[in-house]
């Protein structure tokens, strides 16, 4: 039986984490290949709904990563993002959505090793949690045709 390979979507900022991910590659560090990156100019641009959209499109896990506080390329984008994540994470948890599947991090352009570590550990923990079937069932309304009212 093939082992379950989780699908992970990573929302990253261009200036730090994306560059950091590049460094991981150029440093020839091997790491899990389950991640699809989506590049944003800044974490401040990441709409919180994108997380739900990612789960709705079949992602089993999500990584969100950007510049360290005080290092944002646009000065304060990541500060706004942090506030948003703190509130949204509380809401998701309250709604019963599995926040263990969402990994937030600050990864700078110089932290190629940290990026690999984040990806590997996220893939490992999501693999242990299994596919996010509860959400997939809800999101599959095109097929199941479960509607309300």
């Amino acid at each position, binding site marked *: 039986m093939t082992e379950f390979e989780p699908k992970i979507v990573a929302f990253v900022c261009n200036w730090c984490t994306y560059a950091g991910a590049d460094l991981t590659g150029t440093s020839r560090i091997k790491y899990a290949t389950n991640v699809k990156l989506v590049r944003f100019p800044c974490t401040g641009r990441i709409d919180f709904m994108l997380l739900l959209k990612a789960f709705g499109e079949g992602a089993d896990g999500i990584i969100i990563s950007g510049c360290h506080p005080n290092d944002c390329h646009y000065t304060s984008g990541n500060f*706004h993002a942090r506030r948003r994540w*703190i509130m949204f994470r509380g*809401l998701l948890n309250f709604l019963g959505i599995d926040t263990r599947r969402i990994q937030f991090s600050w990864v700078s352009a110089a932290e190629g090793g940290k990026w690999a570590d984040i990806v590997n550990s996220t893939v490992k923990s999501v693999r242990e949690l299994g596919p996010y079937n509860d959400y997939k069932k809800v999101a599959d309304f095109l097929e199941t045709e479960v509607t309300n009212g």
Partner: protein
Amino acid sequence: MVDIKKKANELLAANAVQVVIGFEEGTSGKSRAIFAQDAAGVDKLIFNSQCVLNLAVYLTKHEIKKLGKPAIIAPLPVMRAIIQLASEFQIKESEMAVLGVSPEGKLVEFQTFAAIESYLKDFKIAMDEKEKEILAKISNMSLSERFDFWMQELGECFKCYACRAACPMCYCHKCAVEQNKPQWIPVAANNLGNLEWHAMRAMHLAGRCVNCDACHNACPKGIPLNFLTKLMMVDAKEIFGQDGPSLKDGHLLSTFKPNDKENFIR
């Protein structure tokens, strides 16, 4: 009510305001909004425990603004909504009069919004026992129990948007769900679309909700969606110390502190 009616009549007679937004008796003991423009209208004004609609929702409606400068009967939830709307530049102090109603039903006159905010310091938003109980009950469920609970409750939703319409903070002329490039939230009523709608709305109300329960009262299906916004309020207070609407403090999600604390970002 006598003192309130007297003041309302005075304001109308002096043409200081052109309309008094208040409550009147409705069908079968319910109460509803009235837009009194003369003494006969003022005479119909009431205030009792059935007056739960948040009248502030009318302050941002262009049809009501056309009636002229309003005086608004403002029990605590309306007062809070006024401060929040003022802090978001949706209403101006000079363009309305506020006839506050104390929890005992007595008139409280305010000359400025700052005076309202100061008055509200004695009436901080707090979860009562019943609300705490329900929040605790949901929070203490297991993850999958919580998910099932909300899928069950939100499954009742048929996206009529009464919650949005009744909320004084949902004043966007074109709501996010009314845009179709992109159709961000599905129009259809299904569990996914409902979840996305309610989650998005709760986030759009983070730090702005005044705990008036208008959304829940408006819902024809009786869904406890006000608990999503209550959760945001509780979090805003516990994590960021935001304690109710304020004219001076910044808004929860459009400000930040360099040392905002969290324990989940690696």
